[in-house]
């Protein structure tokens, strides 16, 4: 276990190092010149060169990357080119909003997805099952920005139940969470259904029925706990999907998280922020996968860590 953890941790660190190198290289090769963006159109060539030297952008790639890594080890992600503030501070100040949205999204997708999957499995082969499975396909095929805009139109513009955008109360959280959750709910519904069907087929379920337990007791005491665990363990892997979605969903709802920060930075070629958010997202994804793998053997003892 310890050896396994150690190996996985080193692997994860190497992956993050690789991500930082690739992102850094990509942004270095950009045809768009960040210095021109900062200096403005009317800047003289000397000013442009000065800014370039100031930011250390005149140095060779390896040197720049080395400096970046050295500072990264101290938790310093550099300064934003445009806002002149620390990227670490910017990200830390935006992170709570994104994490809140993440919690909301996970609650939504579990609540919707698990319920759908459970009902579909119990009513397996019926019209209910088929309708729910089509619905799950619709969920995974719906573009998030369209779902977001439609939810906004119906529940905020027409019905006025929720605010049109922004951040603050729990009411602000509902629509963005739902938008993110609908995509995930589709996957969870399918996983929950097959997990539940697997469990219902087991011998101990037949025993439970044979000793005359009530249907509800069989389902909720014996089947559900066994079926739900492997599905819930997928949350870790879900982080990747979530990190992709926040850029769009946060921009639709004006949610002040790291997705919006990244999107604004991309439009202004603010490289330190783009780097920072990419690294933080990659970190979250790697961590999620790691947790999912570590939890797996606790949920199903047949899985061995190797």
């Amino acid at each position, binding site marked *: 276990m310890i050896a396994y953890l150690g190996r996985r941790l080193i*692997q994860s660190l*190497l*992956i*993050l190092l*690789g*991500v930082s190198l*690739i*992102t850094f290289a*990509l*942004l270095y090769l*950009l*045809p*768009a010149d960040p210095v021109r963006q900062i200096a403005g159109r009317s800047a003289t060539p000397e000013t442009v060169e000065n800014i370039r030297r100031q930011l250390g952008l005149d140095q060779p790639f390896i040197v720049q990357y080395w400096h970046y890594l050295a500072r990264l080890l101290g938790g310093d992600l550099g300064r934003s080119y445009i806002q002149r503030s620390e990227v670490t501070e910017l990200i830390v100040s935006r992170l709570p909003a994104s994490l809140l949205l993440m919690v909301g999204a996970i609650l939504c997708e579990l609540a919707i997805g698990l319920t759908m999957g459970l009902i579909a499995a119990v009513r397996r082969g019926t019209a209910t099952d*088929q309708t729910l499975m*089509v619905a799950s*396909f*619709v969920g*995974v*095929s*719906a*573009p*998030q*920005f*369209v779902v977001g*805009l*439609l939810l906004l*139109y119906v529940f905020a*513009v027409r019905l006025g139940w929720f605010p049109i955008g922004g951040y603050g109360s729990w009411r602000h959280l509902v629509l963005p969470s739902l938008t993110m959750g609908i995509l995930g709910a589709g996957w969870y519904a399918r996983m929950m259904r097959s997990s539940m069907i697997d469990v219902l087929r087991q011998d101990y379920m037949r025993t439970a029925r044979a000793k005359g337990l009530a249907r509800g007791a069989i389902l909720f005491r014996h089947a559900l706990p066994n079926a739900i665990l492997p599905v819930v363990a997928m949350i870790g892997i879900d982080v*990747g999907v979530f*990190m*992709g*979605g926040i*850029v*769009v969903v946060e*921009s639709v709802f004006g949610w002040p998280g790291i997705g919006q920060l*990244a*999107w604004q930075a*991309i*439009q202004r*070629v603010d490289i330190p922020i*783009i780097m920072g*958010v*990419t690294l933080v*997202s*990659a970190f979250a*994804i*790697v961590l999620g*996968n790691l947790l999912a793998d570590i939890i797996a053997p606790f949920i199903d003892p047949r899985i061995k860590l190797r």
Partner: protein
Amino acid sequence: MTNPIAPDLPAVRMPAKPRAGVWRRLVRRPLALLGLIIVALVLAGAILAPWLTGYDPNEQMFDGLTLEGSPLPPNAKFWLGTDLLGRDLLTRILFGARTSLIIGIVANGVALFIGTLVGVTAGYFRGWIGSALMRFTDLMMAFPALLLAICLAAVFEPSLWIVAMVIALVNWVQTARVIYTETSSLSEREFIDAERTIGASAPRILIRHILPHLLPTIIVWGTLGISTTVLLEATLSYLGIGVQPPTASWGNIIFENQTYFQAAPWLVFFPGAAILALALAFNLIGDALRDILDPTQRGRE
């Protein structure tokens, strides 16, 4: 090359039998059939776009706006209404189908090619090439795909082909992983060992023996991949960094008209429904194909 052990035996075409009738089994499933019908409709709409409505997708019509200059709701003349510049929405959606299909096929084709190449190479040759390729794939998995695509698309001057390439660069990873797993288990099987023993060359083994076995997986992932691609293109275009107006794309129709969205929701609804329908169609077909083609899934129904 003749078989040295039994030279007279006819060549064995293993996968031929189970695959016969895939089409028939596909159309017998109502959901897959629905998917096929949607794809056929979109395809027909894309090809026949210039003749279906009689409007030009870029023509800003004088009678396409109200007197105050807002878009028209759906009516007898403009079936799906008009957009903020007074262009016929139906015509733009039909032309947008071309964009979605071209990108869906090109981007997904390239992604599938890269993914298969990486997966097969890593799975068959192993060694340091194999582990280097798979570590790189792991690394790509840690990238938030959409963020990476957004970065790339924002950086390059966006055009239809750039968008397709960006999507391909992001989307090959999953395919590579699946193909890798299958190839490495295939290359341990006895019939591949036998081929090696009789001195068959690596390209021959790969093309004649491994690739045919991978074909079902490639077809399934290729179909499901189109759905992902269509969604990614729409998202990039919605953010304004995908296909650029005036070229119509379902995503950029929503991007352009977003300011009118509260007053004219049909400008979001119709293109949004088109994106959903096409993505859904390929998901339904891909899922049915997986059931039909994957031998481990067979008989589970």
